[in-house]
């Protein structure tokens, strides 16, 4: 079982969330869903002005679609808000959450980092400055992948700096400033 409680000499450097681009698709589909619900409701009124039962059934379907998409969009909003990486002076703690689906907490020890690979392919990723970071650990054969990392280069630099420097040499404020520069 994982107990990633911070050690006494361990300090938090940054808390990062996935890039906001992860919310674009749910928002877009939410708008489509609401539009679909509106179309069904309008169809109910225009096609069945006198048949109250059919109109009622179509309106129920329309409300169902609207409510489903509302729930769906907010569930992804929760996922975006809670799924985060907490970077401390010793570890990267990863929280991955989706209500009733994912309750993942994992961490990697920064001193065990073997290789860091930054992947930022495509026009959108380069314009919006996000990408994937693949981390190879000395102890494990499979790499750990962080997806949708904002400011990918700064993230890699931060991990490298924390990997190279000893606890006494780490200046948290300087690291934060460098990341958000």
């Amino acid at each position, binding site marked *: 079982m994982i107990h*990633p*409680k*911070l050690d006494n000499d361990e*300090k*938090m450097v940054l*808390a990062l*969330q996935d890039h906001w681009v992860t919310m674009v698709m749910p928002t877009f589909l939410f708008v489509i869903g609401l539009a679909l619900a509106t179309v069904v*409701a309008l169809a109910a*009124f225009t096609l069945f002005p006198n048949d*109250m*039962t059919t*109109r*009622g*059934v179509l*309106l*129920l379907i329309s*409300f*169902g679609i*609207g*409510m489903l998409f*509302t*729930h769906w969009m*907010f*569930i992804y*909003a*929760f996922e975006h*808000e*809670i799924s*985060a990486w*907490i970077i*401390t002076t010793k570890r990267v*703690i990863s*929280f991955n*959450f989706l*209500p*009733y689906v994912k*309750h993942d*907490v994992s961490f990697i020890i920064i001193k065990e980092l073997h290789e860091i690979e930054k992947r930022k392919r495509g026009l959108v990723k380069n314009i919006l400055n996000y990408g994937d970071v693949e981390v190879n650990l000395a102890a494990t054969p499979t790499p750990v992948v962080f997806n949708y990392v904002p400011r990918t280069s700064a993230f890699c630099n931060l991990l490298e700096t924390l990997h190279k420097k000893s606890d006494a040499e780490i200046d948290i404020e300087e690291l934060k400033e460098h990341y958000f520069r």
Partner: protein
Amino acid sequence: MPLWIPIVAAVMHLISILWLWLVIRDTRKFVDGQLWVVSDANAKLIQTSGLMWIKRLYTISIFLWIPISFIILYL
């Protein structure tokens, strides 16, 4: 309009509110478990301020469906 239609609408809203409550409960459980992990004030702030807003907006939008749907049904 037949009576069963507003009844079905009311049941749909009840299920919707129940799901809202379950999601918020599950989220709170996870966040409470997460915050003891990182006791730093910054982490708390980051993890809770946006979350409060999402929770409020979610609740408002789900409850807004109730008057909207009944007004449309009886138009």
